[in-house]
């Protein structure tokens, strides 16, 4: 990017990302007295995995026994890599915030006793409300303005730079605190709302030396129509599955059976467990987005077979992300915070998927905490970020360094090469040491060429950066996966060579580095005790 941006703004807090986590972070920072700018690649209200669908929430009334039970069950399911204190924190915070959402106008249904049913949010409705609330709080929102790189000095992060893709100009926002809320990485696999999730925030964090945690817990695919994008599969609980000869394939929505069946050939489903007109009518009303693609394709899902596939969901329903080191979701670099799927969700989900309920509540809570923490950090600064000697931190996929015309690599070619290593069930679902080693080798090869992209316009610039982010994310994922020589509870990571859960590996894995990726282990913090890392094999990063 050129040295001076065409649009320059100064704030206390910059929030990168306009999904639920970013919206909550921006609201929270503004409510805590900060001047806030939120930038989103797309549009605050429609961007991300939540907006086009609906989401369940981890939400329990303040009933001690009920909550203790939920926490104990999650600890086991999550391979004991979560922390009870953090799950309790989320349960407390989300209860408060959902009361707020109702106050802001979300029409929660009440049961026969008048108790509001706050365990589900309809995506479009929820995010439309969040947009209003964020703007009302005084946040300046820049839509269609992807961030490309962070700004740093010796004190830490101080803003970011990017492009306004509909005005074709560059922007720079200086802020003493930055919240990365860019979501996870789903590798352009066409899951509902997920193509904006390309790991951009991971790369930005990686470039300033922040580690990522839990990147091995990324073996997550969602059923969807083979022809379409709808990865919301709850209603498939009413389906029976068939092979192409019409023989029934037995299995549930979870587990390996669908992946195994798809290796053998096409899989079809019929929603024939909803076997009365009343049930069918009810399901139709409850889940408009599920039926939309089938209706439009002219398929009666209750009587006719429809082809299914599995779409890779990466860290969106996996749990890995930016390592956070304190209650305010701060990272190891000064002024940098992470929230939502951009952050690791291990602290509340361990090795199990947060897809569905946990991630939605995590977005609300981590956003709220990160926003508040960022506001406090920024407001404690004496110096405005405008006067800091900040430098752009981006090093990869920003174009302009291909040594000769012959070396130019189109982004599309690299994206295909990345997808070839990340999307196939044979590599990423049925993980083996040999398979992952080979894939990682090929991804290293892609990485060596990310700076040979030469974007010619704003669209290509964003794509080139996304390509670098996906390549980095994939390398971190497989490096971590190869380091966890076991199969841990939750189903998000396993190696065929190591089928059991190994007590010795009841720790977290932190990855870092871009040229060379390194891994180290971190003991799961005991509640109330500061995070400590052991067996350090990489240099300690700059502390905030």
């Amino acid at each position: 990017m050129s040295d001076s941006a065409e649009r320059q703004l100064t704030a206390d807090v910059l929030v990168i990302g306009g999904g639920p986590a970013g919206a909550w972070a921006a609201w929270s920072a503004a409510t805590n007295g900060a001047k806030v700018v939120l930038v989103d690649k797309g549009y605050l209200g429609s961007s991300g995995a939540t907006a086009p669908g609906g989401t369940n929430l981890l939400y329990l009334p303040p009933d001690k026994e009920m909550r203790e039970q939920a926490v104990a069950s999650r600890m086991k399911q999550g391979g004991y890599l979560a922390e009870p204190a953090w799950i309790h924190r989320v349960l407390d915070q989300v209860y408060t915030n959902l009361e707020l959402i109702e106050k802001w106008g979300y029409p929660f249904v009440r049961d026969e006793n008048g108790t509001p049913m706050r365990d589900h949010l309809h995506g479009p409705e929820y995010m439309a409300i969040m947009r209003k609330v964020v703007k009302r709080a005084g946040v300046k929102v820049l839509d269609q303005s992807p961030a490309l790189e962070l700004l740093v000095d010796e004190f830490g992060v101080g803003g970011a730079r990017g492009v306004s893709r509909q005005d074709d100009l560059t922007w720079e926002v200086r802020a003493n605190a930055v919240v990365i809320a860019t979501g996870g990485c789903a590798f352009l696999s066409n899951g509902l709302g997920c193509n904006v999730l390309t790991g951009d925030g991971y790369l930005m964090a990686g470039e300033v030396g922040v580690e990522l945690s839990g990147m091995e817990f990324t073996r997550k695919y969602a059923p969807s129509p083979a022809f379409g994008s709808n990865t919301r599969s709850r209603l498939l609980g009413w389906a029976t599955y068939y092979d192409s000869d019409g023989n029934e394939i037995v299995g549930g929505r979870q587990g390996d059976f669908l992946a195994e069946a798809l290796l053998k050939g096409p899989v079809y489903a019929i929603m024939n467990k909803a076997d009365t007109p009343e049930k069918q009518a009810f399901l139709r009303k409850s889940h408009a987005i599920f039926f939309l693609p089938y209706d439009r394709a002219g398929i009666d899902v209750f009587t006719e077979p429809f082809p299914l596939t599995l779409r890779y969901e990466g860290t969106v329903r996996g749990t890995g992300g930016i390592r956070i080191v304190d209650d305010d979701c701060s990272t190891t670099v000064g002024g940098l915070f992470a929230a939502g799927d951009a952050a690791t969700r291990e602290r509340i989900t361990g090795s199990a998927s947060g897809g569905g309920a946990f991630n939605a509540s995590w977005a609300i809570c981590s956003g709220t905490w990160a926003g508040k923490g960022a506001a406090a950090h920024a407001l404690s600064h004496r110096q405005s970020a405008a006067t800091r000697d900040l430098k752009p931190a981006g090093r990869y996929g920003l174009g302009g360094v291909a040594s000769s015309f012959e070396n130019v690599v189109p982004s599309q070619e690299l994206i295909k090469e990345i997808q070839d290593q990340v999307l196939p069930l044979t590599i990423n679902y049925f993980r083996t040491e040999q398979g992952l080693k080979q894939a990682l080798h090929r991804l290293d090869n892609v990485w060596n060429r990310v700076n040979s992209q030469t974007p010619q316009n704003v669209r290509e610039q964003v794509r080139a950066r996304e390509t670098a982010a996906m390549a980095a994310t994939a390398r971190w994922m497989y490096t971590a996966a190869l380091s966890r020589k076991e199969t841990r509870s939750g189903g998000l990571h396993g190696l065929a060579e190591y089928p059991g859960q190994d007590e010795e590996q009841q720790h977290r894995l932190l990855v870092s580095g871009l040229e060379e990726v390194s891994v180290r282990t971190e003991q799961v913090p005991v509640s109330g005790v500061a995070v400590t890392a052991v067996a350090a094999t990489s240099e300690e990063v700059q502390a905030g």
Partner: protein
Amino acid sequence: MIEVVSESRCVSCNQCVSVCPTNVFDRGEDGIPVIARQDDCQTCFMCELYCPVDALYVAPDSEQVIGISEQEAEQQGLLGGYREKVGWGKGRKPVASHDYMYRLSLFARF
């Protein structure tokens, strides 16, 4: 993927240009938005939801362009169908205020 912008229905509010998460549309010289980057469409249906006059049609196919015309979409009654189901638009009750999801969780299996 997005297939149709109905010129006869469009009121040139450019909401679709603003809300598309993957920036598929460009503002048209005549005021009617243009599908400029169809390949980037992620088939999330958000543009349809935000279109105040039901002028858009997103085909269910996320993997390929099917090439349906405005006339065909109109004849098959496809324009505006999703917004109606979600209960957005004047005089409609948003799906969020119905108890369907609550009942669905009560009847995990009928």
